Every structure is written in structure tokens, then in C-alpha cells.
């Protein structure tokens, strides 16, 4: 790791004093990456790209946005109509928010499938859950800023949840609002925090990457790399693979931005906020719907709030709920079935969260909620004990070589 290996004298001079090039070289050329990563390993870099897009477009939007209840809605319309390419910046910001969640949900499910949360990557996983929480808070406050009907009523419903906390609930809500209802002080603090939190996320992402580089990526067969024959350098093999993912991502994002920019939004948010008129159905953004379904599945308000936060909190202790020493679902035939059931369950919760809380939907939400907790609290611990897993290959290279031999 000596500076001498750089041929350019300027690079050498700088690197001797500030070893940034050594760091880059280490990441790109020395950092060993399992050679069998599939496309599910693309979503981390895509999440990073999403974060960058959100920060850049967000800063530009903030230049023309006015955080005041009388002007917020109008300032957004000015961005859409009068600011040069303002419509483009806003639609990119809106749609990338949705894509960010799609990407991170896939990233999380990838981790669940391949057991990436298991030792020694528990803290890496936990930092991921922290990022997820920060993302949700950021997105929630961002949705309030245009001050449409859903902004206002979504903010009212969600902040009101805290009133369920015994004794101090009401005071907490007043504290969050900065008054006695969602109003100008609320909008101002939400703007301030919405600007701040992406940078906190960026900070946690750095920790996430540091933790990742400690033991390197997990891989589709979930066994540790045993030496040089199991790894390849990040550059050019995974830089090029990441670029393929980026191209795909940008293509789909462009389709959304240019042809269906409002498909993932709610029409009511084009109606200015009106505290005197409650919309027929208050629904949050689609990426909150699974949690919204859990919230409404419980007849008791406090119970609903606890279960909703519990649904995320449970991810923090996941590494200790699933004690099976085998990481990848490829070698866990029973776990794999339950993984897909959980996946369907999450989609079902998302669907139910968008439906009115009445009739059959309530019953189904309760079943789906129960299944979610059952999966983590009962099924995973039981599987750790009772499942008979398939034999693991000796190394990452072994099954690869075996198939090549068989093919010849």
C-alpha cells in the first residue's frame, strides 16, 4: 500500500500527504469481492445513487420553495410552471423518492433471502435499518411540504398517533406541531428537518459502508470467502455490473418521470390544504401502506402504534431471532418457502393499507399482520432448530468448478 505505485508525480505528491488515491485503489483493486454476486447485489449502489439524486434535486427545489402555509402550494406551482425546467426537477425528486423505496425494499429482501444480517454482519444490518427509519421520516416530512390536502391530513393523522402514548402523548403532539394543530410552525420545522435528514442518512451510509468493508459482501451461497480463488477485484468486474444496474434504473426512472409522473402520487395533493375539509380517504404514500395496514389492523390506537413501530423494531433483533448457522435460503428449503410467504404477506399488507378500513379488508389486514409477526417471532426461531439444511459447498469456487466439469 505504498504511494510509489502511482506513476503520475502529482498523484504521488498528493497521495503521500493525503492518501485518498491509496484509499480509492484499495476499494477498487485490492478490496476482494466474492466472484459469484448476482444482480440482487446491485441495489446498494442504486440506493446510493438515489440518495445523491434526491439531495441534488432537493437543494435545487429548495431555492424556489417557500415554507409558509399561505405560499407553499403556490410556490410549488411556480416551480412547475415558471421556473426553468422546474417541472423536471420536481418530477425527478417525486419519482426518485418512490424508486428509492423500491430499491431499498429489494435491498432489504435480498438481505433477508441470503441471510446477510447474520454474524458477522449484524451491525451492518442494524445500520441499514437505521437508514430505513431515517428515510421514512424524511419522506414523510417531504410529502408535507407541498401543502396539499394529503400533505396536511397525512401530517395530522401521523403526528396524532403520538397522542396514544399514555400521560405525555398530548404534550408530545403539541411539541411536534409547535402549536395546537398542524400549522405554519409545523410546516417550517418539517422543512428544516427534511433538509437536514438526508445528510444524516449520508453519514449513516458511510458507517454502513465501513461495516460492509470489514468483512466484505455476503454472496448468493452465503459461505465465507476462503481465499484468492473465491474473489475478484471490485474494479472492473463490479463497477461494470453496477453500471448495468444504473442504466436499467435510469431507464425505468425516466419512463416514470416523463410519461407517468403522477402515477405514484395521489390526486388530492393537487388540492391546496384545507383544515376545514377532510378528504374521503386519507392514505399515505404507497411505500408506507404496509405499515399503515398494520396500524389500522389493531382496534386500539396505542396497540396499533406499538405494532406499527414494532414491525420495524423487530428487524433490529432479526440476527438473534434467526439462529440458523446457514445464511443463504438456497440451502434452507423450508425457510425459502416462508421467505416467499413473507414477501407475499408484505405485498398483501401494502394492498390492504390502500383500502378503506372496513369489512373484509380489516379481517385480512389482521391476518396479514399476525402472519408478519408470526414469521419473525415464531417461525424463524423454530426453523433455526428444526430445519434440516442442505449440505454447503466447501468454497465459492467448488460448485462453480463442479458445474464446469460436468458441462465438459
Amino acid at each position, binding site marked *: 500500500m505504498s504511494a510509489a505505485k502511482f506513476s503520475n508525480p502529482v498523484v504521488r505528491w498528493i497521495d503521500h500527504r493525503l492518501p485518498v488515491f491509496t484509499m480509492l485503489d484499495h476499494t477498487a483493486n485490492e478490496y476482494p469481492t466474492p466472484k459469484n454476486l*448476482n*444482480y*440482487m447485489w446491485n441495489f446498494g449502489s442504486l440506493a446510493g445513487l438515489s440518495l445523491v439524486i434526491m439531495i441534488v434535486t432537493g437543494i435545487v427545489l429548495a431555492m424556489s420553495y417557500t415554507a409558509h402555509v399561505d405560499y407553499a402550494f*403556490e410556490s410549488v*406551482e411556480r416551480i*412547475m*410552471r415558471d421556473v426553468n425546467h422546474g*417541472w*423536471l426537477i420536481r*418530477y425527478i425528486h417525486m419519482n426518485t423518492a418512490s424508486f428509492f423505496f*423500491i430499491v431499498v*425494499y*429489494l435491498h432489504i*429482501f*435480498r438481505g433477508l*433471502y441470503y441471510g446477510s444480517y447474520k454474524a458477522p454482519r449484524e451491525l451492518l444490518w442494524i445500520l441499514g435499518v437505521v437508514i430505513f427509519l431515517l428515510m421514512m421520516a424524511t419522506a414523510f416530512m417531504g410529502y408535507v411540504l407541498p401543502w396539499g390536502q394529503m400533505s396536511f391530513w397525512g401530517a395530522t393523522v401521523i403526528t396524532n398517533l403520538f397522542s396514544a402514548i399514555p400521560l405525555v402523548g398530548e404534550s408530545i403532539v403539541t411539541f411536534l406541531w409547535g402549536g395546537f394543530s398542524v400549522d405554519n410552525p409545523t410546516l417550517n420545522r418539517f422543512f428544516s428537518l427534511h433538509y437536514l435528514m438526508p445528510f444524516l442518512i449520508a453519514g449513516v451510509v458511510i458507517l454502513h459502508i465501513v461495516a460492509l468493508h470489514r468483512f466484505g459482501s455476503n454472496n448468493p451461497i452465503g459461505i465465507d470467502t476462503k481465499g484468492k480463488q473465491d474473489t475478484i477485484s471490485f474494479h472492473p468486474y463490479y463497477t461494470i455490473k453496477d453500471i448495468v444496474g444504473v442504466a436499467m434504473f435510469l*431507464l*425505468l426512472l*425516466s*419512463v416514470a*418521470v*416523463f*410519461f407517468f*409522473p*403522477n*402515477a*405514484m402520487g*395521489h*390526486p*388530492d395533493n*393537487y*388540492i391546496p390544504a384545507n383544515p376545514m375539509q377532510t378528504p*374521503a*380517504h386519507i*392514505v399515505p404514500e*404507497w411505500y408506507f*401502506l404496509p405499515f399503515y395496514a398494520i396500524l389500522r389492523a389493531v382496534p386500539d390506537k396505542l396497540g396499533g402504534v406499538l405494532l406499527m413501530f414494532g414491525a420495524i423494531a423487530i428487524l433490529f433483533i432479526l440476527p438473534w431471532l434467526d439462529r440458523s448457522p446457514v445464511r443463504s435460503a438456497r440451502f434452507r428449503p423450508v425457510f425459502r418457502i416462508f421467505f416467499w410467504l413473507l*414477501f407475499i404477506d408484505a*405485498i398483501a399488507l*401494502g*394492498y390492504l393499507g*390502500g*383500502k*378503506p378500513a372496513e369489512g373484509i379488508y380489516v379481517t385480512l389486514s389482521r391476518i396479514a399482520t399476525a402472519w408478519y409477526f408470526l414469521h419473525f417471532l415464531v417461525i424463524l426461531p423454530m426453523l433455526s432448530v428444526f430445519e434440516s439444511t442442505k449440505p454447503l459447498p466447501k468454497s465459492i469456487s467448488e460448485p462453480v468448478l463442479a458445474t464446469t466439469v460436468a458441462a465438459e
Partner: protein
Amino acid sequence: MMLKLIFTTIISAISVLGMSGTATAAGGGDVTLLKKDWSFSGIFGHYDKASMQRGFQVYLEVCAGCHSIEYMSFRNLADLGYNEAEIKAIAAEYEVQDGPDEDGEMFMRPARPADRMPSPYRNDNEARANNNGALPPDLSLIAKARAHGPDYLYSLLVGYGDAPEGVDVPDGMYYNNAYSGNLIAMPQPIYGDDVEYSDGTSTNAEALSADVTHFLMWAAEPKLEVRKRIGVATVFFP
């Protein structure tokens, strides 16, 4: 298998969204939505200037008495194909308040292209007082503020009719097939032949409703054409 997961997720997410959209559109009652082929839908969509000009005329002569369109300025009429002189002339027919002058007085002057379209009422209270207590919403964003925007607007405007047997229509309310709950406080605005077109195209109720809808879609999404143009260039010719 994992790639399949990606696509299933995206597709289910989109279908869930689609379904929740329709769920919110149906607020009760029997709601009929008529689907029309708009020139602005689809990825090559574009506005029809002649239709928008006619629609603007319908807005001015029929709707503007009750509905404001506050995010539209006269200068935006250039998108409809009017030239600068025409826009100046249209603006000059309106009076807007300006000031204060050197003596501190507010005064009225003819509108200029940079001014916003004036509202029919000074405030919401006056609007309600003149409409049986109901508030006619601002129309600048209405085409995006309702599920299935343009199809819904068109269906609403041609959707008036007699209430079916047994449905009680209170005073000041009207029966409409597209409105959620079927009872709306807006009297039927378009009957056919309400305005005279200079280009000789049809002025039956369907034509007038389609034209004003076209105009309102532009008012809500004035950048639609450039957006789709850049979109085609980005997605198909990178």
C-alpha cells in the same frame, strides 16, 4: 429467480397503486366514467391548439362566472397559439387592481399579459354566498386533482340527467352520473350551443365539454408536451 422478484415487485406495486386510485375515485353512488381518446394521452401525446382555443372560449363564456383559474396568466395563452398582440388585446378587456400610486391610492388599470387571470369573486365567502353555500373550486389544477382527470371532467360535464326513481334531489342540488354521491351543487353548465365558435366546428354539448376539458388539462399541466418530447428522446434514443 431474483430478477423475477424485481419485476414482480415493481408490477405489483404499480397495480396496487392503480387499484387504490380507483378506490378513491369511487366515493359512493353510481358513478359512470366515459373514456375518451385525448390527443394528449400516450407517450407521443400533444395538445390540439384549436381545441384549446375553443375550450378557452367555453371557459370564459360559461365557467368563468363562477370558477377562478388563478395559476394561469394571460401570457400563458401563447401556448394556445395566440400571438402577442392577441394576448394584449384579450388581457386589456379585464381590469385589475394596482398600486399604490404616489398618493398612496390603489387604482384600477387594464390587465397586461403578465397579470394573472382575475377571479370572479373577491374571496371564498363571496363565492359561497353566490352559490347556495357551495364553493366552486379553482380550475387551474382540477384536471390533476381528480382521479382519471380529463375523462372525469368530461364525464361530469355531460353527466347531468334526471335522478332515477326514488332518489330525492334536494333544492339547489343536481343529479349527475359522474359525481361521487351523484348530487352536485353546480347547476348543469353546458347544454349545447352555449357559445358560438368562429371556426364552424360542432357546438353540441359533447364537443363543448371535450374542448373545455382539453383546455383545463393544459391549464393543469402546461409542460406536458415538452415533457413527453424529452421523454421520447431520453428513453428511445439515448
